[in-house]
């Protein structure tokens, strides 16, 4: 592999690489604002300037400049090499580049940093970006100079609503145009643009439009400063109190890799962030997915119920066990859920097997809108997973279950999940005895004779198989809310109370048992490394 020299270190590169891309792959960080690995090169922030050494025997390209001489107290003429942006400079074999080791590059970066902060408001205490802001990080790393300008800074519009999800602050903006490029290149909706020049420049929405495409939150995500903030996250939490769990978005069958940011003190999830995985979602997530974290806390079933009345977990388990013991296998249906992980569904299948129930159906959220970027029409994270788990048996759709109940052949339903893919046939559930494990309110929770509160994806480790057939592990972020428990735990308890204990108690044992019985692709694959942006 050809290499080039960066600060005395040999860095391998591939054909067509830029300096910054090759350096990033080798784990060397060159400071940058406007460059993003998933976007085109703009080279407008000038933070990544590096010194490109001339080929041997050739003179360097030098510029005439005036430099301040402290001793003489005046400007003196000097020469300075022409610096190049690392994000735009292509590499060739044997090239010699100085980044950290170049005094000129250091000086240039300090000057860029000083310029960017020239008109920046004193907003850190009220800015959501504080704690993960490039301006803060780079100020300390590059220059760390005090303010030299005594004039009033330029004032620009603040808290401008760009659309339903995004609020813009022009004073904080460094006009790196990442948001403009996200709209244009990722969402294919060039709705943002730059107006004016110099220190009057600001981002604007196209006249008559709103920033309302399906990927608006990606503009906030790529914003290296606090100029774009998400309505959803504004003033909700300070980022240094949040911890991140490596999760998988459960909003659709794409299975985008995400971070769930939660506050360990109140066990509340506050936001999702995309997690880089070039095989699935590259660097991105859609708005529906980014806002899906709300479902972790909204419309939750948090206590066991029998016939709609809140009861003790013990009583609910006994009632459910009694109903299952009385049910005959011919008239009992088992409803698997594409909303839940392989672990939960595997536990349900194991329980069904021990009772001899073999009529398997599937449920999940109704289909929705898809696109050719990330969004999948199937709004369930694990449809492929349950189909695989149930093999060789075939999963029948809920509509068939509804007609079987109406026809009187099914009298008892053991159901996992909260939603049903069809809205109009849910009344059939009234005529059957439903034992449900649901995390959210919905038709199943409403019609359940016995209802056990299941945890969501954020409260347990689980494996989800996306539409491409890739099994991905999602980590537990927060503790189970209310009296909820992961569904596989309820099922193990239920089996124990019914006198037919399953062979495992812990998740690791469950996975071992799954490894023996289920197809190998149902097991969690190793998750992709944490992304950088």
């Amino acid at each position: 592999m050809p290499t080039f020299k960066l600060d005395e270190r040999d860095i391998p590169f591939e054909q067509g690489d830029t300096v910054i891309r090759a350096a990033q792959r080798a784990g060397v960080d060159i400071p940058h604002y406007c460059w993003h690995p998933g976007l085109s090169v703009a080279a407008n922030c000038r933070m990544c300037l590096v010194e490109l050494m001339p080929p041997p025997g050739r003179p360097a390209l030098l510029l005439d400049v005036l430099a301040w001489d402290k001793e003489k107290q005046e400007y003196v003429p000097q020469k300075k090499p022409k610096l190049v942006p690392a994000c735009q400079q292509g590499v060739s074999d044997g090239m010699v580049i100085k980044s950290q080791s170049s005094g000129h590059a250091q000086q240039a970066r300090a000057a860029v940093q000083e310029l960017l902060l020239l008109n920046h408001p004193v907003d850190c205490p009220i800015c959501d970006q504080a704690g993960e802001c490039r301006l803060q990080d780079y100020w300390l790393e590059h220059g760390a100079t005090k303010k030299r300008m005594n004039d009033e800074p330029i004032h620009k519009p603040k808290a401008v609503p760009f659309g339903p999800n995004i609020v813009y602050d022009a004073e904080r903006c460094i006009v790196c145009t990442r948001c403009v490029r996200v709209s244009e290149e990722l969402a294919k909706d060039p709705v943002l643009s730059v107006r004016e020049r110099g220190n009057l420049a600001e981002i604007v929405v196209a006249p008559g439009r709103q920033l309302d495409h399906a990927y608006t939150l990606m503009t906030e995500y790529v914003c290296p400063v606090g100029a774009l903030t998400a309505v959803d996250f504004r003033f909700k939490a300070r980022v240094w109190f949040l911890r991140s769990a490596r999760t998988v978005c459960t909003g659709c069958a794409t299975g985008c890799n995400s971070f769930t940011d939660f506050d360990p003190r109140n066990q509340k999830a506050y936001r999702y962030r995309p997690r880089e995985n070039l095989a699935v979602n590259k660097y991105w997530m859609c708005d529906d997915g980014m806002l899906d974290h709300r479902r972790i806390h909204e419309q939750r079933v948090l206590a066991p119920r029998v016939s709609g009345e809140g009861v003790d977990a013990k009583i609910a388990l006994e009632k459910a066990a009694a109903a299952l013991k009385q049910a005959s296998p011919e008239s009992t249906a088992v409803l698997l859920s594409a909303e839940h992980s392989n672990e939960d569904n595997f536990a349900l299948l194991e329980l069904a097997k021990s009772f001899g129930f073999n009529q398997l159906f599937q449920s999940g959220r109704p289909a929705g809108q898809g696109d050719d970027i990330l969004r999948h029409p199937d709004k369930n994270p694990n449809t492929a997973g349950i189909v695989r788990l149930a093999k060789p048996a075939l999963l029948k759709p809920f509509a068939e279950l509804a007609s079987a109940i109406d026809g009187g052949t099914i009298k008892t339903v053991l159901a996992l999940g909260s939603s049903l893919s069809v809205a109009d046939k849910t009344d059939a559930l009234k005529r059957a005895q439903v034992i449900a494990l649901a995390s959210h309110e919905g038709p199943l929770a409403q019609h359940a004779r016995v209802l056990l509160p299941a945890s969501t994806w954020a409260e347990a480790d689980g494996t989800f198989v996306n539409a491409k057939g890739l099994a991905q592990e999602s980590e537990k972020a927060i503790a189970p809310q209310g009296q909820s428990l992961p569904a596989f735990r309820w099922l193990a308890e239920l089996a124990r109370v019914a006198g037919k204990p399953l062979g495992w108690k812990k998740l690791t044992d469950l996975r071992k048992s799954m490894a023996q019985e289920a197809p190998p692709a149902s097991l969690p694959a190793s998750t992709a490394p944490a992304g950088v942006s």
Partner: protein
Amino acid sequence: MEPLDQELDQAELEMPAEPMLLNVGPAHPAMHGTVRCVMELSGEVIHHVDVQVGYLHRGFEKMCERGTWTQVFPYVDRCNYVSPMLNNVGFALACEKLLGISVPERCQWYRMALGELARISDHLTCDGAMAMELGAFTPFLWMIKAREMIWDLMEEETGARLTHSFGRVGGMASPPTDGFKEQARAVVKQILSVVAEVEKLLLGNRIFLDRLEGVGVISAEDAISLGWTGPCLRATGVPYDVRKAHPYLKYAEVDFDVPVGSASDCFDRFMVRIEEIKQSARIIEQSLERLADSGPINVDDPRVILPPKDEVYNTIEGTIQHFKIVMEGLKLPAGEVYSYTEGGNGELGFYLVSDGSGTPYRVRIRPPCFLVTAGLERVITGQMMADVVPSFGSLNMIGGECDR
């Protein structure tokens, strides 16, 4: 029931031949701090003693691993609460060694002056308490009165009498007050006169001398092998003082002597401390002489020093600097360092490991008292029970740093 008028020759009289186990502490007036001594006595002679520390375990080192480097200062204050300024400066010097910075000259002289005042306060407490425990109450009151003057001065400078938390990485929390030099000179003068009076009261007192001379002897070899440092080691005749052997701050530039003992008994330890008070007074005088009235007290490094408040409130650069240092903590470069200074009771070492983040990866303290207390067993074995009091007093165990 036995008749009360039983004749002596009829009764069975037998002296118990078994040694008696006596448990002193952990909460006992004769024990400085919570330490327990299980003594095996034969009559009044101690045959064997088991010294047990650990009753004051506060998890100091572990606590340090969850805050920032700056947040360690209040903890080191509480290690030796009789001379917290020496601990503050010792820890600051360790961080500065890892950062590769050194504070401005003015700060160095200021740190020396405050540190030596703290040392005097430490020695006054130890010697005063020793005298009191042997029944000489007046010298105790006088010495504590003198210590009170130091604490008043410290309060004037730092805002706190006891736990100052005044050190900072890269400087001090604030510059010397306007009246510092004048007040410090006045305090030192009064302390020296108190010490002279105490000497007159005690050094001609037969009872006091008999209780100390030849009591609690330890050989220089034993003391070194136990890792003793400070006044207790110097009382055995070994002239090891970190300030002389490995000078830090400006100790190489000041003129002072290292007093040593010869008999290495309790009396020598008492006298070494008295003499060190006088030497500290000399150092303070020279430090005040060279302490500039103006000039920077903190290093000019935005990575470690907080900006002035008006900059924090009015400029973005100041806000960012403040934010980075307060929220993330100042970052010491990844690596490890051992830095040692002369504390009140000997070599006070800090071994720091940094992983480059704002939070300490490991803070290990080498407190002088822990090693000195380890020698208590050797010092009092074979002594009379009553000799435990002056022997233990002369070692000056400080529970806070012994148990950490």
